[in-house]
């Protein structure tokens, strides 16, 4: 039997790795990928608590499904924005995009 805290530690490690990626990536697509890692860390925690809380109706799994749906929607809109920015300014490096920076 694997203890509950080991799943939570895996989630914490994935979250920290995703956070590092969000801070260091210059490519907008790389930032979106790191955000997907963070959302997956949240999902691992939700499903872990669903299994170990003793609640039989699977609320945590349903919330994980909602998180997956929202992640898909955000990825679609985010990548669409990236393509639109690339079409207009020929770059997707976030430190070169300063159109609305004062």
């Amino acid at each position: 039997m694997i203890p509950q805290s080991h799943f939570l530690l895996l989630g914490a490690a994935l979250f920290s790795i995703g956070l590092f990626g969000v801070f260091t990536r210059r490519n907008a697509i790389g930032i979106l990928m790191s955000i997907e890692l963070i959302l997956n860390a949240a999902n691992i925690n939700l499903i872990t608590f669903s299994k170990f809380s003793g609640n039989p109706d699977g609320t945590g799994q349903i919330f994980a499904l909602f998180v997956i749906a929202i992640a898909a929607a955000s990825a679609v809109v985010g990548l669409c924005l990236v393509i639109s920015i690339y079409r207009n300014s020929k770059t997707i490096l976030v430190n070169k995009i300063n159109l609305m920076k004062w």
Partner: protein
Amino acid sequence: MQLLSSHGLSQDFIIKATFYFAAGLTLLFALLVVLSRNIFHVAIYLAMTLIGIACVYLYLDAEFLAIVQVLIYVGAIVTLFIFTVMLTADVDTGSMRVMIGRVSVAALVSLATFFILTNVITMTTWNAAAPAQEPVSLAQLGKSLMSQYALPFEVISVLSLAALVGAIVIGKAEKR
């Protein structure tokens, strides 16, 4: 399984060994996602990480979530990422020298977050004697999705529709 048991390996040991192997592989690929320089390789590593997380879901008795993870994330979202990488041929990585300051600050912040979370998780006393309950069945999941969580389900449907329409509007080519 019986063959392995006859060689002196208990089922518990096999479960533990495979879980820690899968978790370690997942973390390794996640590190490659944030450290690799080539954005196309990053997309492949992301797919590997997501498959590893689907394996972790199997250890949590969430078979349906594991299947959904592979279908939606690996099948749809990573494909979308790969297409976007191909459409925006901008693999300029820049010089490493200007990055050093930002990398050290980012490493400091994320390591601090990790240590705080680790301390919180290890200091909390989780109810170790969790009741050996039945895993949530797919029928149970569908029932509560259609009865107790019907309203959030509809809201998610509207959100998906809005994302679809928004993606088409933003991505539409401008008229020349």
